[in-house]
């Protein structure tokens, strides 16, 4: 019975997701497109950091590369930005290859710092190389569709592909090798695993998926600039949060994390979906109005608090600590 539930749940969730945009307005369609995009990015981060144990602080480098590939296809070659879904993934992998080859000689925190540097280098390249990238002006393209529905289903397709690809990888030899490297690099090496080689494979797969998500973003938003797509806190840190909050090293953790994080982000941005500011204005108190303004600007700080809470109380994330969370609520009823 329990096994059946486990098998059926993903199918039910998928059916709900397919029907979801047909019954809600554009605002919620938009939010769900973001959630699905973050499922792709979060799953990719989970592969390299959660399963392979090589924490990346620089996912934006791959995301931005994918987004710029899609954008430049339009402005430089006059092709459709949708080619970016393939070429964006490839170009992000091409960034990951030399980076991994050099930087996987570093371990632990030193590797994480190198990814942070890659993030910054890529942003500066995109800013300074004006002839090619347009610099701070960014890239503006025409969107293909007026309706949000096509974007939604493409995003849903990519999210499903990301989860399925990573599932297949983790059930193969690669998966065993990635986990071995996470648990103990020296032991893995002495068991015949070329750790440098397999860390690079993991990074390249993750980078490709993240690049595809970037290309999707370019297509959907129609505008990118270096500060948006190479953003440290809005992309790189958000990717880490999606992973940690959902559950590091779990299959569906990033999907749950993406949902929660986009909701949290939106809640801060709109001040509890406008509720806080309504209350503040109704009360007429200047103090409450200024507090409500502050809340909507404080989402980065809110993220920070959330990370602290997640690490303290559910270090394995929502999916990893699911039983603990259920136990918390059911204790009272017993």
């Amino acid at each position, binding site marked *: 019975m329990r096994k059946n539930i486990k098998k059926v749940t993903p199918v039910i969730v998928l059916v709900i997701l397919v029907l979801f945009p047909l019954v809600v307005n554009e605002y919620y369609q938009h939010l769900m497109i973001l959630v699905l995009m973050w499922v792709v990015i979060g799953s990719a981060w989970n592969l390299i950091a959660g399963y392979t144990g090589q924490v990346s602080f620089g996912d934006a480098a791959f995301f931005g590369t994918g987004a710029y590939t899609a954008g430049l296809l339009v402005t430089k070659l006059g092709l459709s930005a949708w080619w970016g879904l393939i070429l964006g993934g490839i170009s992000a992998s091409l960034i990951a290859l030399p980076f991994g080859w050099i930087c996987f000689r570093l371990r632990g925190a030193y590797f994480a710092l190198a990814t942070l540097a890659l993030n910054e280098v890529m942003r500066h390249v995109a800013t300074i190389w004006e002839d090619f990238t347009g610099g701070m002006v960014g890239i503006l393209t025409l969107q293909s569709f007026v309706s949000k529905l096509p974007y939604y289903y493409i995003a849903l397709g990519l999210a499903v592909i990301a989860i399925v690809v990573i599932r297949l990888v983790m*059930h*193969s*030899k690669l998966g*065993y*090798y990635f*986990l*071995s490297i996470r*648990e*103990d690099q*020296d*032991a*893995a*090496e*002495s*068991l*015949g*695993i*070329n*750790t440098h080689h397999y860390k690079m494979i993991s990074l390249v797969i993750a980078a490709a998926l993240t690049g595809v998500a970037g290309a999707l973003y370019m297509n959907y938003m129609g505008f990118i600039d270096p500060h948006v797509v190479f953003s440290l806190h809005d992309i790189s840190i958000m990717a880490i949060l999606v992973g940690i909050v959902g559950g590091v090293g779990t299959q569906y953790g990033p999907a749950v994390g993406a949902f929660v994080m986009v909701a949290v982000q939106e809640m801060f941005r709109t001040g509890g979906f406008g509720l806080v500011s309504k209350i503040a204005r109704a009360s007429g108190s200047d103090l409450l109005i200024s507090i409500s303004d502050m809340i909507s600007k404080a989402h980065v700080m809110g993220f920070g608090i959330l990370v602290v809470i997640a690490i303290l109380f559910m270090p394995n994330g929502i999916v990893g600590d699911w039983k603990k969370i259920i136990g918390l609520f059911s204790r009272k009823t017993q």
Partner: protein
Amino acid sequence: MSFLKVKNIIKNFGGLTAINDVSFEVGRGEIVGLIGPNGAGKTTLFNVVNGFYRPTRGEVFFRGKKVSGLKPHRLCKMGIARTFQVVKPLQRLSVMDNVVASAFVRAATKRRAEEIAEEALRFTRLYEDRNIVSRGLPLGKRKRLEITRALATQPELLLLDESFAGLNPSELNDSIEIIKAIREKGITILIIEHHMKVIMSISDRIVVINYGEKIAEGTPAEIGNNPGVIEAYLGEVHNA
């Protein structure tokens, strides 16, 4: 042509000479014990043979081929496996998954890797514990898991680093049985051990090192009566 040949190995760490001009050979099918007081350089020597360290000078030959300077994963594919003194199980994986991960070295498919793993687990009598997460294993079984993992890479030469330390007498006997069974499979064994009774009873030959230098080599009986060895272990004899 000897099976494993360690030739004039010197290993320096900065100004410290951990291994100083050590040479010895291991024949195919032998069990050779490597003993010496704490800090003598036994594990360092293992790390050189296994490829974790590049020797400062000197060479290691395996089946006539020079292997010093190659990475551990290459040596593993050539047939050298090792265990660690401080056990390094893949903590959050089950016992079975630990062994499957190492079996992939010689397996093309997952099914084949699982077959090799199951065979290795039966051989070391850990099969009943295969679904336990390895973090939860008691030390004796963790040590045996180390050996099982090494065996699953189907080695020709097995380097055992203190696989008996901290075991209780019944676990000790189990492990001795397993070592003897491994030898019967035709696997050559180089073993570091502090437990004198064990090393004397299973080794064909023993190499003794002290302060990074080889001070004696011979059969267990010869080593037991060697004054230099007794001195290294018990201190110099002072005549009053």
